[in-house]
């Protein structure tokens, strides 16, 4: 089943906004495009993996890096606290993993 990445992107943004709340309006101009870029990279990771172009270690490393990177990007903004950035990254990751489990049947930790 083909993934609707546009919808996944919207759902991830909604999940991040629900955690960041008022801070989102402060950081959205700068952080928004970067979050979308991270989602796009997440999509590429899945495509490479489904084509057998990544080892399982590489796939797991990239997934871990993805979450770490999103958290790091959000942390660059003074309006976003360290704990909130971590929660927002977790929320984004949960949406992505749920979408992958439902859409592609991939076991995704």
């Amino acid at each position: 089943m083909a993934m609707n990445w546009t919808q996944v992107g919207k759902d991830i943004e909604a999940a991040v906004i629900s955690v960041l709340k008022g801070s989102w309006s402060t950081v959205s101009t700068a952080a928004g495009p970067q979050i979308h870029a991270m989602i796009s990279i997440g999509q590429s990771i899945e495509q490479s993996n489904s084509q057998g172009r990544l080892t399982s270690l590489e796939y797991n490393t990239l997934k871990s890096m993805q979450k770490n990177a999103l958290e790091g990007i959000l942390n660059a903004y003074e309006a976003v606290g360290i704990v909130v950035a971590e929660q927002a990254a977790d929320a984004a990751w949960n949406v992505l993993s749920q979408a992958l489990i439902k859409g592609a049947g991939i076991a995704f930790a």
Partner: protein
Amino acid sequence: MNTLRRVPGKGLLLTRLIAVSTLGTMLTACAPTYDNVADQMLVATQTQADDGLLKLENLGNQIDGLKKSSSASDHKILTDDEAQASYASNIDFYSKLQSSMTALDARMTSNPDLSTQKITPSLKALEDNIDSVRQTHATQNTVSPDFAKLSRQQMDQQFKALTVYELTIKNGNKPQ
């Protein structure tokens, strides 16, 4: 004078109050100062990471292509490429990159303005990701071209976040 003589600590107390008040005003009023050296170090470190990972991506693609060939000359090139893509041949790249990140971290967080401490987790996340790539390469002794490419793209986004921070300061604004 008589009053000060009767209460010896009063003058000292006044001096301290003025000092604390001045320090408080300074801390709340000043925005981070743009640091040209930190900006240049950031660009240089990103270039260093991009160069190393692009080299691994290109070698990986070449190796994949050469593996399909039965020519003896291609086999020799394949052996050379595999040696260049091995972890042992890239230890220097990772060590120099991690050293650059340590120096960048020190420089970017040394600004006396308290808001610069906010970027410490961002720098740490980038350092951790570089180390993750290094550990994966060390474990497998090689990395796939897709892994090198996707690692580079992720790191570029992290470098971009730090660049936005630097440019915000350069434009005279306080980072959000």
